[in-house]
């Protein structure tokens, strides 16, 4: 019999703890496949965040370090400086990266650190139970913005890609989504490109992946995918914001 599909060798096979309909699992799979296809799994080191993906070190089939909340880019910097031949990537959520870890991500980008960041944006704090994030949409209700996020006082979505793309030493900044199969294929190409640039020592790369949180959004998995398309993408336009190789 011909094998047409199998679990990526980049995943350990440990059952994932993610909620039904959450797209973290898909994003893990794409990252794992990218590592395998680039033939760098054996020299990859993952840095896990604090948040829903805290157990990423259980799932990626490579060496890993678990970082303090928001500090993954600093930990990755430490690893990469010691072991420049390792392929070092962080996997961070929006609370981790865009709130408590904002200084670390900006300075890793500013410093042109040759690391890759997988930034999973689901516009909410998932692990802690659906609190407001810097990425929460205006009007979006959360457990700490029960009337919906208000532009005045609570602010409006922080667009990380657009901000980091202004930083000179970055190599590649892209925003993708996994709410449909065509988008998923684009996302995979972006992740591969980001990791490939690290292999080529081109510097800092980041791929923001728009993700779902059916549990804390209060939506079915299918409706959550639709919510990404109808509500998140208008606030977070997809595309390549920086590519030192000139692609857009």
């Amino acid at each position, binding site marked *: 019999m011909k094998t047409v599909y199998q679990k990526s060798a980049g995943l*350990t096979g440990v059952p994932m703890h993610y909620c039904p309909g959450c797209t973290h699992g898909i994003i893990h799979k794409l990252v794992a496949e990218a590592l395998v296809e680039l033939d760098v*799994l*054996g*020299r*990859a*080191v993952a*840095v896990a965040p604090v948040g829903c993906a*805290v157990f990423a*070190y259980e799932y990626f*089939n*490579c*060496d*890993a*370090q*678990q*970082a*303090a909340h928001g*500090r993954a880019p*600093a*930990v*990755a*910097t*430490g*690893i*990469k*400086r*010691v*072991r420049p031949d*390792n392929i070092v990537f962080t996997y961070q959520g929006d609370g981790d990266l865009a709130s408590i870890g904002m*200084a*670390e991500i*900006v*300075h890793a980008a500013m*410093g042109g650190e040759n690391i890759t960041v997988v930034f999973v944006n689901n516009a909410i704090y998932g692990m802690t139970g659906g609190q407001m994030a810097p990425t929460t949409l205006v009007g979006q209700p959360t457990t700490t913005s029960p009337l919906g996020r208000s532009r005045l006082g609570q602010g409006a979505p922080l667009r990380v890609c657009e901000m980091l793309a202004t930083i000179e030493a970055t190599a590649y900044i892209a925003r993708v989504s996994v709410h449909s199969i065509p988008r998923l294929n684009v996302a995979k190409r972006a992740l591969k490109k980001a990791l490939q640039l690290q292999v080529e020592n081109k510097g800092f790369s980041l791929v923001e992946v728009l993700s779902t949180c059916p549990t804390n959004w209060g939506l079915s998995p299918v409706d959550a995918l639709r919510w990404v398309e109808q509500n998140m993408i208008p606030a977070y336009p997809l595309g390549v914001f920086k590519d030192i190789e000139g692609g857009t």
Partner: protein
Amino acid sequence: MAKKLMKGNEAIAAAAINAGCRFFFGYPITPQNEIPEYMSRELPKVGGTYVQAESEVAAINMVYGAAGAGARVLTSSSSPGISLMQEGISYIAGAELPCVLVNIMRAGPGLGGVQPAQADYFQATKGGGHGDYRVLVLAPANLQEAVDLTQLAFDLADKYRNPVMVLADGMIGQLMEPVEFSPYHPAFALPPKDWATTGTAESGGRRRVINSLYLYPDELENHVRAIYRKYAEMERTEVRYELYDCDDADVVIVAYGTTSRIARSAIEKCRRLGLRVGLLRPITLFPFPFAAFDRVVDRTRAFLVVEMSMGQMLDDVKIAVAGRRPISFYGRTGGIVPTPEEVVKQVQTLLGGPGA
């Protein structure tokens, strides 16, 4: 090798490089800036890497990553910066990573001042960050000792897979003394770093994970108990202290670092006055030399603790003396360094007269 006149901060930095440290992550803060400056200048010459972090918070997490990747790694700071690092130090202790931290203490609390102080004793020796853990703390009193202890700190960190802190103050950091560097050899056989995350291609496919998360309470309790077995081992084998002129001492001064130097001058003056005074100088602050007190307690009439703080090591001295003798305390704080004359006066008051 010939003796060299060096500033304390530079001597500590040079000792780290001599001990094979090739990675430094830090952030500027007075009065320790000569350490990062020296490292930024000298590390590239030996193939090492200096990174100026965006904050002490980032610096200690870079240390975490580098230590987890198997490197000998150093960071240095001064009191407020060390406060910022406490979260990371807790993670490093929890994840059982070796690293060396240097705290060139300045006066607090808050922004405090930039003059020397010893008011971070509690923070250094009792954990400092959240959770059950300790940092092994070495307190040099002169620059040769700062060099020797800094080198030893790397060996101890590797042996125990635990952060080791060199705790000095602005006085030690800024003064100049002759120091001698010998070719470095590890103080003992060091365990292999087969736990470091260097990629599974190098480990035959065995995944290495650096982590301090244990969601099941029984697992976490077992983990903490295992860490505490290391601390018990430190208490058995790593205690270091010095006894000076204690054989006939009516008063034993207890002081470490800068204040122990002042105590030594005070003791000379006391001896000239016919007052029999000695010094018990802890060199390891954790593990604290509790048993050293048993060696002097029967012969002495009283203890005098001298610190540049409002009395922090004092608590450990109380535990050590356990009510067997009276304990007096003399402390200056805010960046004020006590004079030998002030200490002599304390001894005279204790002994009930100006001299014998």
